[in-house]
């Protein structure tokens, strides 16, 4: 037999050769140590890969992901961008359209607050901005992400948050605003038609407000201020 190719020797080591060919190579390996070593090299690499990869532990994150939510298969779970809490901590990111919701704070036309359900109440009461939590709200499994905390000129606290349905085919994320009333209940504010607002320092002024009219100013809290407000029960 001619000197077999590497592919043939490898196929022999892997048990992929037809019986007749395998017998010929086995015979050759008996008499030719170089062939035997080559065969061994292929067998050894396979064993090495199998043994070393057997040490790998399966990712617990995915295991949990597959185990849970059998009732409502979550769609691809968005991972919170690492920069988001940092962005929230910055004085203000123009891209976060908190201001779009601010005219509800004026208590103007169409202002129809409704008490938030208990799961939302609890989440708004105790979850820092930038920290996503999963909740069932209005019968839907959602990811709730508090975006910011605001304080109105008359001292009320409001929180802007987004809700992302986790059920398959769910709607896109919604942005919403809830304000805490004197009795300690978070009231969902009806979303206004888009209103453009301009930022002035830490105060937001509605661009649509008439000149001279009392601006509906609301201050955005820093993370420290938010923590302090939360710690003191929003009082």
């Amino acid at each position: 037999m001619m000197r077999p190719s590497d592919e043939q020797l490898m196929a022999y080591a892997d048990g992929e050769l037809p019986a007749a060919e395998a017998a010929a190579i086995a015979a050759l390996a008996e008499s030719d140590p170089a062939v035997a070593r080559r065969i061994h090299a292929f067998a050894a690499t396979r064993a090495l890969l199998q043994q070393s990869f057997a040490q790998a532990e399966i990712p617990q994150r995915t295991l949990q992901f597959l185990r849970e939510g059998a009732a409502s298969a979550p769609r691809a779970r968005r991972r919170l961008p690492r920069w988001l809490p940092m962005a929230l901590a910055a004085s203000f990111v123009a891209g976060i359209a908190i201001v779009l919701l601010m005219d509800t704070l004026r208590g103007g036309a169409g202002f129809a607050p409704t008490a938030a359900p208990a799961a939302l109440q609890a989440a708004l009461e105790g979850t820092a901005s930038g920290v996503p939590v999963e909740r069932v709200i209005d019968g839907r499994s959602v990811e709730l992400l508090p975006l910011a905390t605001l304080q109105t000129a008359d001292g009320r606290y409001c929180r802007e948050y987004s809700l992302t349905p986790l059920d398959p085919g769910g709607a896109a994320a919604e942005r919403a605003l809830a304000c805490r009333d004197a009795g300690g209940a978070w009231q969902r504010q009806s979303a206004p038609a888009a209103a453009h607002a301009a930022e002035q320092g830490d105060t937001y002024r509605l661009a649509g407000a008439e000149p001279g009219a009392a601006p509906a100013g609301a201050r955005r809290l820093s993370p420290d201020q938010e923590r302090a407000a939360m710690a003191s029960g929003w009082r």
Partner: protein
Amino acid sequence: MGDTFRSDLIALLPRLHRFALALSTDRDRADDLVQAACERALTRRAQWQPGTQLDSWMFTILRNLWIDQLRARPREVVLDDDALEALPDDRDWNREIEAQMSLDRVLAVMRELSPALRSVLGLVCVDGRSYKEAAEALGVPIGTVMSRLSRGRMELLRRLGTPQGVGHDATV
């Protein structure tokens, strides 16, 4: 039905994860690939036909995700396959890989191989597919699988056998 699908995926997790490790050669990236593949499988569950091989389908999903990542990071491609040529055949391979080697050590060496070589190594040596199955999974002829596989394994040995390779790792 959904429960069966999920538990089938769970049963596949170890194999999927090992394949992802072979492709990415990075533990974090492998974890992310497996997670992304499972998420995609759940959203595209309707496209999978019961009775066909779930493992092949999942391996394809995972490999496509990895290829997308490679395209996004073209710098990662290190070696041209054809640059790997004849290797000495009279070395004492025994000595060099007899000892059990840590996974991280093996991954570090695999990282230097081209993606094409890592794919066949992952399918055949790690997952235990036949040449024919690997050829079908990759959409290439069996001869291509064999030549890549042979080069990949010899290259692996050669790199494990270099002084920087073997002597370096205390566990070897």
